[in-house]
């Protein structure tokens, strides 16, 4: 039954039909699927299928990523309230857009997807100073800092990832806190994350969730 639910749920996502996707989840719960299974055996596998589809050059797009994140966010909030035991967080991270960058969409997609992966995320908002990224990461015991940038100069600039890296280095935090970057400039130049000294990048907000969970494991090990 779960395979069929994943299939129709993902079809609704690809059609950007939120109401249908939510209905599928609610029907499944009514038929006895546990809230835990909805998250871990429907929503997350559906995300992984989307990531796989994208890597195979399937026709997935920004609206579908946004829809995936929105629904994951909504369903996770609903289901978590019904969990028998609240799972401990898979990790903690802070996320924001680089200094000078006012583009919030990518960050929102990442946050929605991370919620379903049980990651505790603090949204630092837009136009975030590098010092603020580091201070908040330390204050919240975050293992990952996420920096979103939609423009070349905010991705590469001296008040973006490069400065965050410098601050982590100065404070001896590089083993404890990893940096992930994302946004259009990184898609057009897949080596750019190395130039700005990030630890990782993701091609889109949905894929970012998995990369971030891998980074937590790196920090823990």
């Amino acid at each position, binding site marked *: 039954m779960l395979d069929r639910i994943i299939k129709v749920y993902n079809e609704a996502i690809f059609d950007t039909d939120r109401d249908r996707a939510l209905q599928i989840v609610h029907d499944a719960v009514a038929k006895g699927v546990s809230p835990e299974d909805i998250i871990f055996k429907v929503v997350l596998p559906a995300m992984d299928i989307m990531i796989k589809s994208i890597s195979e050059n399937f026709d997935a797009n*920004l609206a579908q990523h946004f829809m995936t994140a*929105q629904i994951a966010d909504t369903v996770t909030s609903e289901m978590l309230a019904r969990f028998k035991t609240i799972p401990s967080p898979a990790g903690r991270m802070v996320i924001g857009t680089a200094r000078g960058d006012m583009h919030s*969409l990518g960050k929102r997609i990442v946050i929605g997807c991370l919620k379903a992966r049980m990651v505790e995320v603090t949204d630092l908002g837009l136009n975030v100073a590098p010092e603020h990224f580091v201070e908040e990461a330390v204050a919240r015991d975050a293992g990952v800092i996420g920096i979103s940038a939609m423009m070349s100069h905010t991705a590469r600039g001296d008040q973006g990832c490069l400065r965050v890296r410098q601050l982590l280095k100065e404070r001896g935090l590089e083993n404890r806190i990893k940096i992930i970057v994302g946004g259009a400039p990184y898609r057009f130049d897949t080596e750019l994350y190395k130039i700005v000294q990030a630890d990782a990048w993701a091609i889109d907000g949905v894929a970012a969730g998995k990369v971030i969970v891998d980074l937590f494991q790196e920090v823990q090990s």
Partner: protein
Amino acid sequence: MNTGMDRLSAAINGVKSDRIPVFCNLIDQGARELGMPLKEYYAKGEHVAEAQLRMRVKYGYDNVWSLFYVGKEAELLGCANILYAKDGPPNVEDFVIKTYDDIARLEVPADITAHPAFAEEAECLRILKREAGGKYPICAYISSSMTLPAMLMGMEKWLELLLFGPAAVRDELIRKCHEIFVKEIKAYRDNGADVLVYSNPFGSTDTVPMKNFLEHSLPWIEKDITAVGTDGIVYYCGMSRFNKVIDIVLERVGIGAYYLSPLDDIAEGKKIIAGRGLTCGVINDLKLAEWTHDEIRAEVKRLINAGMPGGKFLFGTGVMPYNIPEENIRTMLEAAYEYGQWK
């Protein structure tokens, strides 16, 4: 001697001039050219015009721009705060639409040419027309009806309204954006712009699924272009890919020029266009700062080899990042002039 206009006209008509047209979109670089900060540079239309004319002569490419920065359109509709950087394009800092009620309150200026936000662009166009008119194509940038809302309320809120929001509110906003689009096109044409870059990421299946494109984007593209005509219009999706929709846009709307994404397959795009319009092959200029001399030349050669055979081809750049060294800009352009020659 051939001018940029000669080369562009020849390419559109499928005849050969000395070489293919080469469009280089240096925008923020104008401030460096005049030795001033971006905020001071963009305060005056005469600065932008002077820098555009100087850079065209310096590098020898075929076009000039009247574009200041994309957020200018939001200023026409009331945006008061623009965030300036020292090394990149200004951003809209304060969105005009914060709640759905603001959409009902949004006023389209009766005469945008009388609006202070247009005055300096008009001055820029006046100088460009006087100095380059008829010789070098003067480009203007206009957001489509579906795209301007992203500048007014942010992409996140716009996508939310488009996908989940009340249809009546969504349609009212697009309708108002269509009104401003029509007025902008008329103003740019009246003031001397020849090439009107119709920017529409929602015209790409990288942004919305085909179903959504057919239901929403395409009908508004048809309305936009039917209202202003196809003369000088260039289909551009903000660096997103659009090979999958070229055929339907050509058939239904009749736009005659397509400025592809650097991620599109140029040969495939040209095959789809099949002589019915101009194919513009675009280099991935986000990599230009790091590429070596040889890598730049190889990439230019690859793009021109894919698109030039059979003519009706233009070589172009995206919105060139500010940090690209002059030497790399020259290397790219010299390679384009060399490989783009008609023997």
